[in-house]
């Protein structure tokens, strides 16, 4: 496969762009693989890539029922940050953020990582104290953030409403300068291309319809493209995790709900950072195209329809108009929803399951995109060794019966 570079761009430009190779192979599935990964989103593709790259396991298939990156990978607000409170979370999300820093170079694919800075507004005294606590935790965990006062918030983002008489006045913020955004589709495509080059088969339009288990151990999957045998199975399917668990005969502590996002009409540059206003449930950044990318809280009930509620949109819009008055007359261009897999403590589940050879990587809830590289990195290690690595170990399924929660639900409030 040819490398992308300024020279390949020039060469193809002179040839009227007729000679570009396809970015990844489109093979028919083989009869058997060492590892089958269900779910061709960012996490599944990253897992396949690191399996081949770091662990030399390249007899791997990624099965995707639709098209790669067509689920939550293509439905998020692309925010990357690692300012988590708990040590276990900080280790995982900071590993991920660091991998993002050099991911374009590593994959030879421009994922447009933009460390523009993420600012979490403190709008109540309680929230301000909470963020001070997070600030000290992030320093101990080597994922530095800083506290910025109201004046500095206004400098960083002039369009915020700094009226002291606002219902939720801005008291300051938690600033992570090396957080930011990346192009979500490119993350999936970059991992797919790099994994494919290392020998991973990426099989699209291939829904998994059943899981074959013999003597308590997985032996294969039944798919829309026939039966495929495997020694290990990695389930990385976000909102449908409990459906796959059902096929394998175990249960997960997960509820699937809709999370929505939307973008405005494109406007001239008005903000060059990411702002999260967690008290009022809304976050916003401006894309390279000029659209304001807006996200809010998840719906509160079970939903597999990839469509959310009007009331969730109203609530988010109300909050953001209060925080950024200049957006009050903007038209919204597009709106969409993804089905997210929520755990009780709002932390993911990575590791073994009651069925031998079946591993899960799920429960990322509303905050999975930022974790894509780190998730793939530690899940690949887990799959290859058959045991979780140091980063993945605290996120085991057993923590729910052991009472060993990694409680980010209280720590991170609504927005993840």
């Amino acid at each position: 496969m040819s490398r992308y570079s300024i020279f390949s761009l020039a060469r193809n430009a002179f040839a009227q762009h007729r000679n570009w190779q396809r970015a990844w192979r489109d093979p028919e599935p083989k009869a058997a693989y060492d590892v089958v990964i269900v779910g061709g989103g960012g996490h599944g593709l990253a897992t396949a890539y690191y399996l081949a790259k770091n662990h030399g396991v390249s007899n791997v298939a990624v099965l995707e029922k639709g098209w790669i990156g067509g689920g939550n990978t293509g439905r998020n607000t692309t925010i990357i940050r690692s300012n988590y409170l708990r040590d276990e979370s900080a280790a995982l999300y900071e590993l991920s953020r660091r991998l993002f820093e050099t991911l374009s170079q590593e994959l030879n694919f421009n994922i447009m990582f933009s460390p523009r800075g993420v600012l979490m507004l403190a709008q109540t005294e309680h929230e301000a104290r909470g963020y001070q606590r997070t600030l000290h935790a992030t320093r101990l965990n080597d994922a530095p953030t800083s506290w910025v006062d109201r004046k500095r918030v206004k400098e960083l983002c002039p369009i915020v409403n700094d009226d002291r008489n606002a219902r939720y006045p801005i008291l300051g913020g938690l600033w992570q300068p090396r957080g930011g955004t990346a192009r979500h589709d490119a993350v999936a495509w970059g991992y797919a291309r790099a994994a494919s080059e290392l020998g991973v088969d990426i099989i699209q339009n291939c829904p998994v319809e059943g899981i074959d288990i013999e003597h308590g151990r997985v032996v294969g999957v039944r798919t829309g493209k026939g039966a495929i045998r495997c020694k290990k199975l990695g389930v990385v399917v976000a909102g449908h995790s409990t459906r796959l668990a059902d096929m394998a005969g175990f249960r997960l502590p997960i509820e699937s709900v809709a999370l929505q996002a939307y973008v405005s009409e494109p406007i001239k540059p008005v903000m060059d950072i990411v702002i999260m206003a967690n008290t009022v449930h809304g976050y916003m950044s401006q894309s390279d195209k000029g659209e304001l990318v807006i996200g809010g809280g998840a719906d509160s009930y079970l939903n597999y329809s990839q469509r959310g509620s009007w009331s969730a949109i109203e609530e988010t819009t109300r909050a953001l108009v209060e925080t950024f008055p200049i957006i009050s007359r903007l038209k919204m261009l597009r709106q969409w929803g993804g089905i997210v897999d929520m755990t009780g403590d709002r932390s993911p589940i990575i590791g073994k399951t009651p069925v031998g050879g079946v591993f899960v990587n799920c429960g990322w809830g509303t905050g999975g995109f930022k974790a894509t590289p780190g998730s793939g990195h530690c899940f690949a290690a887990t799959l290859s060794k058959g045991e979780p690595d140091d980063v993945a170990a605290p996120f085991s399924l057993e923590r729910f019966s052991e009472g060993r929660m990694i409680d980010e639900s209280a720590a991170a409030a609504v927005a993840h």
Partner: protein
Amino acid sequence: MLMIQCPCCGATAEEADFHCGGEAHIVRLAGDNDADADLGAYLFERANPKGLCFERWRHQYGCGKWFHLARDSRTMEIFGVYDIKAPAPPAEIVAEARRRIAARGLPEHSNN
């Protein structure tokens, strides 16, 4: 947007007036000497069905009372509401739900 009719006060309102209390008919544990695994399962594991589901809802900004609701988590169609004290879904609501799901050409539950 769900339009829900509260069986307790009779008012019909948008979902924003209600609060979803999650999966219904979870059987409470005995409460003493429960195994850790049973307790974890009771507290956190959910059926999370794709298709016919039964939930508890509360008319939060209305009469404040709890009730049960039968719904399809794929289509958002509501099949009926019933008393919070019912230990299992009433047969007529299950029959009505099955009839309307079949009329759409869907299985009762799906995986993909």
